[in-house]
């Protein structure tokens, strides 16, 4: 009995080590942002455009990574949410005469709110109903974008979307706009980094891993599930708000259901649940085909096949493969078993 420590008395506490491990994600994000600021200097208009498109896509994939990778919810409307953001920003900055920053904020808020409204009925029933509701929603948005010509321009889309002017700086040139995209992407990635490290992130992970146990620990499953979905959708809205001025012309086709599937595959390819996964996923999905010069449909088949192969061999995606390699290298000299993050799926 004597070796049983008292519960209420002072207990020698083990060494705190919250900040012991340096945060690799944070360092990678900051270094990558600096690199991306300078890299496209000699790349020309098209090369810079592809890099910007990569980052914009990565923002949408980041949001989906939160919804799917961290909270384990299937959303099949990420491209539709991106469409809402893109059309909202395009309309507000052209017909509305608004500046980009408020249009960006409104796009995010709007998609967040729509996410809440959409997620509420679906998640009341069962988590996988969200897949079907978002599937239906995706089709509905596509119909609206195509049919409401007076507002969206129908199949002809909206053109002459202005690039933003911030604090008196015109961001018209491809390099200036690219750097602007880098900054916005960094801010959004840092916000997500913070979110994932906060108790919210822990709760999201808990509801993916074991909702029954999470509920018994007082975690409000419905609130957290809704929030994960709405925040993930808001990131699609933010991505859309950047996409519109990047391409300067939008039509309904990049926001169709198949685009949502494609974004989901990017999450998985990069590594579902890994914070840097979306950048790798978007790299494979957006940048690689541009450099390989493989035509659209054929590349889609190739990409989908790669994802299926990855899902069979390593469901943790490219990040998972990298991590496996890294631990294999580190394990050899040290001989120690490091805690490895398992499949996020």
């Amino acid at each position, binding site marked *: 009995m004597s070796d049983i420590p008292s519960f209420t008395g002072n207990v020698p506490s083990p060494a705190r080590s919250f900040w012991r491990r340096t945060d690799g994600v944070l360092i990678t994000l900051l270094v990558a942002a600096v690199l991306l600021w300078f890299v496209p200097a000699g790349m020309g208009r098209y090369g810079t455009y592809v890099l910007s498109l990569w980052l914009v896509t990565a923002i949408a994939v980041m949001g989906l990574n939160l919804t*799917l990778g961290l909270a*384990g919810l*299937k959303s099949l409307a990420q491209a539709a949410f991106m469409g809402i953001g893109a059309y909202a920003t395009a309309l507000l900055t052209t017909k509305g005469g608004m500046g980009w920053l408020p249009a960006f904020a409104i796009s995010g808020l709007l998609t967040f709110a729509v996410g809440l409204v959409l997620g509420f*009925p*679906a998640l*009341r*029933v*069962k988590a*996988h*109903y969200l*897949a*079907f*509701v978002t*599937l*239906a*929603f995706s*089709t*509905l948005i596509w*119909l609206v974008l*195509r*049919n409401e010509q007076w507002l969206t321009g129908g199949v002809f889309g909206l053109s002459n979307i202005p690039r933003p002017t911030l604090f008196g700086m015109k961001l018209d040139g491809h390099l200036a706009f690219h750097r602007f995209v880098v900054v916005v992407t960094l801010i959004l990635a840092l916000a997500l980094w913070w979110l994932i490290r906060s108790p919210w992130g822990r709760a999201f992970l808990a509801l993916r891993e074991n909702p*029954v146990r999470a509920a018994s620990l007082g975690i409000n499953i419905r609130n957290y599930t809704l929030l994960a979905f709405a925040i993930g959708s808001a990131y699609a809205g933010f991505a859309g708000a950047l996409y519109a001025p990047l391409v300067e012309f939008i039509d309904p086709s990049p926001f169709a*259901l*198949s685009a949502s*599937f*494609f974004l*989901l*595959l990017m999450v*998985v390819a990069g590594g579902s649940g890994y914070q840097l996964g979306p950048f790798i996923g978007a790299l494979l999905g957006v940048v690689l085909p541009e450099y390989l010069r493989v035509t659209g*449909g*054929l590349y*889609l*088949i190739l*990409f*989908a*096949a790669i*994802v*299926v192969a990855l*899902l*069979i061999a390593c*469901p943790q995606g490219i990040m998972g493969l990298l991590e496996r390699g890294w631990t294999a290298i580190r394990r050899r000299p040290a001989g120690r078993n490091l805690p490895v993050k398992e*499949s996020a*799926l």
Partner: protein
Amino acid sequence: MAEFIAYLIAGLATGAIYALAAIGFTLVWQTSQTINFAQGEFVMLPAILILALVKLAGAPFWLAAVLGVALFIALFGWGFKITIVDPMIRHGVLPLAIATMALAIIMKEGAKDGFSAEAQSFPSLLPAQTLSFMGISISLQHIAIIVVACVAIGGLQWFVTRTRTGRQMQAAAQNPGVALILGIPVARMVMLTFLINAGLAALASVLISPIYLAKFSNGEVIGLFAFIAAIVGGFNQVRGALAGGLIVGVIDSLAAAYVSTSYRLAVPLVLLVIIILVKPEGLFGRKEERRV
């Protein structure tokens, strides 16, 4: 009124086809937890395969139809189960669902790049005659579709409830653990549902393609309606999926006629949301008890 009945019958015909897809969808869901997001593409592809055999191999239509359907069932019944479902299911439901999305993309883009991006006419089993009956003109083709689909579904229902193999299949779906102890070859039963699913999809494909033409992108709408039918009818029932399919088909047909052609798709979507809000277990589904 005459017009209304014509729309109703057209709706029942397409609805019967959605029901075929929805039944296959619920079958594989029940036996293997596979949410097949490529279900619509499963209905799209057989017709394309048959046309490809006719065009590229010069086979006569009847031979191409037999070969195409057999090939499809082999590839997307047996092959799908072996190459995608079996290795993936150990990782959980979610990776498998995502793999079916990837499969949907592969099938769709494959049909587009490998065959044609244009809609192709598909020969009908019956001449496209219309019968006039008391001032109502009824397409013979629609009637034939309803009859063929009903016979197929009736046959399936008879198989599942009246035959030994069918009952074993049901047992394997409801409780694989117990079924295994009782000596039921669960793995073979699960495989059987995948073959049946592919067969139903092929039948749906052959029935629907004469009306809507064979096109690579057909799967999107068919898949969506099959999901809606399955949920509206109740996720865990064959008769639920049948009723759901018919309801969705009729609503779609009436919406196209009386609401707006550009928003006809939206009406079943609204129905889906209403069902989820009001009766989430579906019209014919049983409420599932939360289990710990």
